[in-house]
């Protein structure tokens, strides 16, 4: 394993718990269907990625290393 962890998003797995939005509202949002996480604030850095991946209950946000 090399490099910083990168956030991987699988919107199909999202259950709308809102943990990412609550934790980092500048980076995450929910659209009107509530299901989709979007990124109004641009890329999620290596400090935030592990935090939100850990908080996400459904596996919609997970970590990968390049």
């Amino acid at each position: 394993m090399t490099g910083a962890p990168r956030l991987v998003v699988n919107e199909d797995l999202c259950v709308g718990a809102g943990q990412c939005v609550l934790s980092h509202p500048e980076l995450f949002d929910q659209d009107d269907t509530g299901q989709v996480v979007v990124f109004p604030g641009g890329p999620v850095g290596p400090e935030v990625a592990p935090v939100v991946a850990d908080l996400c209950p459904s596996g919609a946000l997970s970590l990968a290393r390049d």
Partner: protein
Amino acid sequence: MTQDIADTAAGELADPPEFPMRRDGGCPFDPPSRYKQLRDEGRVIQVRVPTGQTAWLVTRYDDVRRLLTDPLVSADRRHPNMPLTEEVTPQTRANIAEFGRSLIGLDQPEHGPRRRMLIPEFTVRRIQALRPHIQHTVDGLIDDMLAGPKPADLATVLSTPVPARTLCELLGMPYEDRELIERTAAAQLRRSISPQERQQVSAEMYRYVDQLITAKEKEPTDDLLGRLVLRNRETGLYDHRLLVGLAMLLLVAGFETTNSMISLGVIGLLQHPEQAELIRKDPAAVGPAVDELLRYFTVVDALPRVLLGDVQVGDVTMRAGDGLLISFAGADWDDRFFAEPEQLDITRTSRHHVAFGYGIHQCIGQNLARAELEIVLRTLFTRVPTLRLAEPMEALPFRDDTNIFGVDRVPVTW
């Protein structure tokens, strides 16, 4: 040594202890002392629930989270081995099995499309928009409390009406129906309720919600249940009866837990006046405080599950068909994930607690609950800085032997 003998040595007890276990620590807030012992030993053991079934009790944070994301762990309430944490009539058991099909008893892939019908109603933004209404409700209730007699029972004047009125507003129930919601929901919380009474109260609530959904099916209103009816016309996922079941679930899940957390949260802060002071001084302190209070009290102890295949925890292989009790109260006091878990500390980071569960069934209303708790605690401690318990804490009637932790009465003065 064969695996089976190892299993017996590791977890299958000849005389399984009863679940729920009594909170037997020195402080009424401590989860049962056995949980810590099991966590430290890294063991799961079998326990016996009031319906006579046995189930594996899981108390470690990492095991709890891993199992709740394992597709071999099923939430299907129709399974005969699904452990129930209270004594129920056969009719109630059948209802739990049937109404689980509305959401909480579904596994993937059935669960996703049904949950998605509710998600738009609980987005962080949608809940933000409800805050002025919740604030208005709380302001009025505290006005009434301050104008009324001392001491007052906080459970009656605040913990019950705040979630009941919030749910009326959210779901789109006529305001005058809040009395029925408060009465039936409070009856179900009563420790002394018999299985027969529980069934009757539940039937009364069902009749009410059935009529409400019928009315909204005729004429959909612009509220959660009305929009759900409209969305269901497009997806066709629910029949009338399961739609009623879903509305009942929102009512019960949204009331009982919030009710407990308001009472316990206030008591917790009254026991730690220096932490209440932090909330008075800094409006931003209440957000982290609410998550720490959620962790500390973790009012829903354990969630029932059943295994669809063999799963290993520590030395034990749990078999397909075995029941599970996945303990959030155990997990949230796991000192490998929360330093000194027995200390309430609203300045710590406890967002990763599992008081709302984990996995695909994690509480959909969690951000509504957070909003209610934040508004109640900030408003109460700011407006009534002299608030204190009117009786010693040891005298309060804690529900310390039920799966949902709570307290029946909170006498306060100021």
